[in-house]
């Protein structure tokens, strides 16, 4: 029963015209043209359309319901496809003998001429012009921030001290738990790493040097920066991006307040101020973590800290703090720039957040490499 009811079409040969009206043919539609069933593709009629289209200038195809004809959206989408193909072949469709509702829907769907599809923009995975745009906008943003900072120093900027404090609180104290966890673990990792190697020479006591110098010069600042890039850089991008979407940034501009002074500067200042403090905190905890491992193995606390007091210089701590200030600046710049150049949709906010974190981490690793080279050359 069901097989008989399958949707199919047939050229009605009985009414095949002979003579003057050669441009018109009748196609009969049988069966259930329903969305849940198999429906013929509109392309099946291409041959017929070509033939009819070539035969006459004003070719016409009459669509006629045949035995057991049923229809729903499935048929209508077939009909629209067929209509678009027929237009391409210069053939007209005549749906007048189909059910009335069918004709009405067809009229609705074809009432407005379809917009010609816009050519998709040529895209490669990484295009040079995109990178150039990125660099340009970063430099532009850097310039704006510099100008705003100069305005702040000369007392003309509309930066609110209360905002700086608010962001300081958000970035600093609120990040302490995660910094604690990560720093202790990194200290322990450093200690284990050194212990295995140094034990071969019976030089376990040098773990203290390794952990202390490793944390203060490098890992303290780097791990804090990575955490803040994910935590604060992303938050800045999302906050500023959402403000773009809500037209809040526009509202500031039309109030006569420069967004860079009012929104960006407090965030950057807060992060730059908080980074060295968190870094020192991270150094201390990292060394404590290393001490835990060392004591669990062969050393005593006294040995460990005695050794540290001999080798750890004030220089190493300062070098790490200087790094952390640079990192803080870069993370805040990446986050704020991503937010301020965010598009006007919720998807754009997501992209801005991603960009903030990725760029932030790339910047700080590159800067770290450069700083290490400079430190080495200068003998710091």
């Amino acid at each position, binding site marked *: 029963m069901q097989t008989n009811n399958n949707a199919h079409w047939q050229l009605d040969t009985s009414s095949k015209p002979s003579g003057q009206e050669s441009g018109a043919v009748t196609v009969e539609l049988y069966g259930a043209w329903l969305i849940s069933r198999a429906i013929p593709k509109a392309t099946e009629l291409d041959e017929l359309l070509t033939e009819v289209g070539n035969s006459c200038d004003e070719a016409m195809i009459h669509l006629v319901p045949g035995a057991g004809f049923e229809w729903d959206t499935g048929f209508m989408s077939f009909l629209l496809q067929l209509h678009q193909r027929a237009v391409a072949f210069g053939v007209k469709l005549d749906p007048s003998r189909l059910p009335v509702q069918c004709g009405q829907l067809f009229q609705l769907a074809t009432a407005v001429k379809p917009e010609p599809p816009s050519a998709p923009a040529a895209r490669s995975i990484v295009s040079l012009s995109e990178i150039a745009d990125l660099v340009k906008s970063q430099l532009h943003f850097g310039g704006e921030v510099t100008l705003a900072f100069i305005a702040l120093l000369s007392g003309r900027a*509309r930066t609110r001290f209360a905002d700086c404090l608010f962001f300081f609180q958000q970035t600093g104290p609120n990040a302490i738990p995660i910094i604690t966890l990560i720093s202790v673990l990194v200290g322990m990792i450093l200690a284990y790493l050194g212990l295995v190697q140094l034990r071969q020479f019976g030089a376990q006591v040098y773990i203290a040097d390794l952990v202390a110098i490793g944390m203060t010069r490098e890992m303290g600042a780097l791990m804090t920066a990575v955490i803040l890039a994910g935590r604060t850089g992303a938050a800045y991008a999302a906050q500023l991006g959402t*403000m773009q979407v809500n037209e*809040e940034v*526009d*509202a500031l*501009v039309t*109030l*006569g307040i*420069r967004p860079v002074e009012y929104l960006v500067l407090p965030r950057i200042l807060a992060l730059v101020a908080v980074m060295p403090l968190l870094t020192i905190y991270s150094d201390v905890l990292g060394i404590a973590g290393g001490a835990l491992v060392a004591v669990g193995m062969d050393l005593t606390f006294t040995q460990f800290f005695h050794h540290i007091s001999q080798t750890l210089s004030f220089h190493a701590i300062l070098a790490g703090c200087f790094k952390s200030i640079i990192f803080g600046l870069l993370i805040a710049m990446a986050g704020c720039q991503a937010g301020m150049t965010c598009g006007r949709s919720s998807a754009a906010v997501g992209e801005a957040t991603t960009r903030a974190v990725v760029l932030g981490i790339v910047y700080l690793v590159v800067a770290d490499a450069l700083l290490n080279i400079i430190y080495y050359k200068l003998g710091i």
Partner: protein
Amino acid sequence: MDIQRCSESAIQVRNLTLKYGTRLIQQDLNFDVDAGDIFVIMGGSGCGKSTLLKHMIGLYKPAEGEILYGGQNFFSSSEAEQQKMRRSWGVTYQSGALFSAMTLAENVALPLQQFSNLSVAEIRDIVSYKLALVGLAGYEDYYPARISGGMQKRAGLARAIAMDPDILFFDEPSAGLDPLSAQRLDELILQLRDSTGATVVIVTHELASIFAIGSNGVFLDAETRTQLDTGSPEQMLNHSRHAKVRSFLARGEMSTTHNTLSGREARS
């Protein structure tokens, strides 16, 4: 500056062309907004009304042409002058654009804190007064997310009038409001204009609003991408050369075939 020209035309738009990148939005716009006018920028959806407004408030730079405020060209002015001009404007946005991290009172207080030497107590009093003007007395400590869309728009208006601006810009003030709220907002705009003498520029396609408050206006067309007509709404409804304008203002209540035909004639 030159106050005399100010009193004639608050805003003059000359040969303005608007583009997004390379996409043309509108071209050859020429109109004057007189001081004390309620000037309506009207037109169908997607014709570039809001884009024109964003150019007029200096958010986007026009591709060509100029906009003069009291005879001074905004886009060729120095940044400091631009900031000064901006401070004499009040802008309300379609969504309200309130600062979501601040209470309503803090929102309204922001321009006062930034640009006046008033004391904290004085600012608090002014904020209460401005919120009361828009019917939001007692909502000082609410955050924008906690009030309705209509209230957000009114709070946005309170922020826009905080500094007693000379020119007030509205982007679709009654969109998304029920008819009664929309009508109250219209009345509020009229009363503000009458009591402060501000010039009002308003983007809308609400016919009721257009006729209730508009004293002058410009009609933008999406198809030809330019202005079809200027003048007061009544004048445009009754005497416009363009059937499209008359039909828009009459809510399409003219025979459509006649419209499109004469519309084409008029354009060609």
